[in-house]
């Protein structure tokens, strides 16, 4: 599968998140959107929700059960959860390894 395909899927997850989130936690649907740190609208719970939405979408689309938030992700020098783009890249990496 292509990187773009996974990115599109993460963007869909962002849209889904926006449907249930409180106003102040809604995100711009864009690869550049920050998910962590001062420039992010998400708190830790929001991030967890978004990650689970991505995991569910990956399971639906590719029939694989990936855990995006685990020790490995947490111990990366640069967090894969910085932005929509980096989250999509990390998901793509895990998918490729699984294949």
């Amino acid at each position: 599968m292509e990187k773009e395909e996974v990115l599109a899927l993460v963007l869909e997850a962002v849209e889904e998140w926006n449907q249930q989130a409180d106003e102040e936690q809604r995100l711009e649907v864009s690869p550049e959107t920050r998910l962590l740190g001062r420039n992010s609208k998400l708190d830790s719970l929001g991030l967890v929700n978004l990650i689970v939405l991505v995991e569910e979408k990956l399971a639906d689309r590719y029939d694989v059960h990936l855990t995006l938030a685990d020790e490995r992700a947490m111990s990366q020098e640069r967090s894969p959860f910085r932005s929509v783009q980096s989250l999509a890249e990390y998901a793509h990496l895990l998918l490729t390894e699984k294949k």
Partner: protein
Amino acid sequence: MTIEFMLDVFRESRQREAILWRDRAYSYGWLLERLAHWQAALAEQAVPPGAVVILEADFSPNAVALFLALIEHNCVLVPLTPSVEAKKAEFTETAQGEVRIVIDEQDRVRFERLPYRADHPLYAELRRRGHPGLILFSSGSTGKNKAALHDLTGILDKFRVRRQTKRTITFLLYDHIGGVNTMLYILSNGGTIITVQDRSPEAVLAAVEKHRVEMLPTSPTFINLILLSEAYKRYDLSSLQTVTYGTEPMPESTLKRFHELFPHITLQQTYGLSEVGILRSKSKSSDSLWVKLGGEGFETRVVDGILHIRAKSAMLGYLNAPSPFTEDGWFVTGDEVLVDGEYFRILGRRSELINVGGEKVYPAEVESVLQEQPNVAEVTVYGEKNPITGNIVCALVRLKEPEDPKAAALRLKKACRAVLPAFKVPVKIEFVDEAMYSERYKKIRLRPSPR
């Protein structure tokens, strides 16, 4: 004569109905005769006093008579119902059963010798006292089944004071502390045991109508099923005065809904454990989860948010686990409670508490919100490990009618978000087709599992 006080009641009530079984009434006079019959039979079968007797049965005339005969014979009773069919061999071995009495669905009785020798030190203590015993197995939903050995004299003591009795369905099982308590309470006060063979909402409510039942001791899960099946619309429940609930936390939404439908029925919470027996309890009101607990022979205290109980009727110990009591005899229930004056509110088991980023979530609170949403039949909330927030809240939901899972999950999350703080809103909602309750009409809870 451990049950002499009960026999006095029986003799006064010879003509009264003691047991209703398969639409036939059995009087207290019948019960007295049957008790004598089984006492003679135990002697004839050479069952020695102190013997450990496995009693495979459900509530029936002979199951009641034999329970009493075995008490009088100072035996150790080990009731086992069909709900533990798959574990009967294991339980019989754990209890070191010496004799087995099987009572079949037609109420026919069969005696068998077993190869075990009951030499557990706790049995020796009971024999030294010359008292009858009772073994109750914990449901073991969270691990192995523990065998709690009771001195029956302690359990029986609290029934010596006569109280008002009602026509009552023995809904809780014959091998459960709640079922045993219901039976002994009714008999000690000359009431009527109304048995049911089928414990579905339809069958139980049909029995209420037919036999003008006044009291139904049950569980929150079963009350939810009554509401869900709408079985209450098909039967006349005007005789019903009291419904009691216990064995698991009650979702507030279920309580309120039932109370709105049946304002004339008193809803009363009960509280008890296999290890200490059933406490006397009094709910603040029918639509309140606050309850007074205690009564003679029971002391309560709260340490670090957890309810502790010290009971005269506490078990001697487990046959297959170390003693759970503190040195000065307190039992740590594991139940988290709030306290307001003399009232307690039971929040749930600490082991089932979900810690989300340092905040506590009790499954019952989230279940209560989900339960009142449209198209929800049944729900179980549990925690799952997560490296970002420690744990996340997850829900398993059984729907009434088919619905797109994505749309349903979104709808339910939104509903939760409207009334709960964000950390209590389920992150994952999965849908199941199977019922999620046990044969004891209790929610089957999932343990938080590492991913």
